[in-house]
């Protein structure tokens, strides 16, 4: 009975926890794609352009965890010339593991996504 229970928790964990992890990864990737394009579209070689780029990323209303949580700790980096590309990383998306932790899995799984967009023209390049 206990063996069957462990197996059942593992199956439920695969479906439930991995399902949420894959969704979070997909949501984070879509967010960083949009954020990188938003940042790249503001670059003009000046520090003011960098500020506008950071603000454009911060203004994006997109959410993760089935659309319930805001992205936090988003990192925005730029090319040294301040006008070629922008890289956005969403490093802090921690999915709480529900079932797999009962069979030895970690309590949380961190999902990371990053995108790079060129500025002229604005296109995703990574």
């Amino acid at each position, binding site marked *: *009975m206990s063996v069957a229970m462990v197996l059942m928790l593992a199956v439920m964990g695969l479906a439930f926890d991995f*399902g949420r992890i*894959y969704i979070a990864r997909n*949501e984070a990737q*879509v967010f960083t794609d949009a954020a990188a*394009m938003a940042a790249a*579209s503001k670059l003009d070689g000046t520090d003011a352009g960098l500020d506008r780029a950071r603000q454009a990323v911060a203004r994006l209303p*997109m959410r993760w965890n089935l659309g319930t949580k805001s992205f936090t700790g988003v990192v925005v980096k730029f090319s040294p010339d301040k006008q070629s590309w922008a890289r956005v990383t969403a490093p802090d998306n921690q999915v709480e593991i529900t079932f797999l932790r009962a069979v030895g899995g970690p309590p949380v799984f961190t999902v990371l996504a990053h995108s790079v967009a060129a500025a002229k023209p*604005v296109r995703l390049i990574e």
Partner: protein
Amino acid sequence: MIELAVSAAVMVGCLAGTVQFGYTFYIYNQLVTAVGNGGRYAAMRTYRAGAPSDIEKGKAAIRNMVTYGDARPAPDALPQVPNLKPDQVEVDWVMDDSGNPASVNVSLIDYTVDAAFGMFRFTGKPAVEYPFVGRFAPTESEP
């Protein structure tokens, strides 16, 4: 016998829940991908605004991209996600102070997942916002 009856009831319930949530998550993941691709397409396409009907045609192309993965799908095209219809895709353009398109919001309204043992309804999610980086053509018409 009683033990089997009790444990079978629990197991069937757990397996039903697993199927229900697993399938719903699978569909939601596909919706996130479809809406994200549609949003990126909207952000990069030419915004033609020769007449109000051109704006609507542009929105229809974006809805088709979300639904079918193709702005001009064949008449017998199948949706990327089961039962998804173009009418369930909301496209909103955000204009800047000069009247130029600044960004586009794409989301789903009233999409229901039929997951065998239950239904899940999504309204307003998944949702994306992309900056408009395409060409603005205020006098052109959609082909």
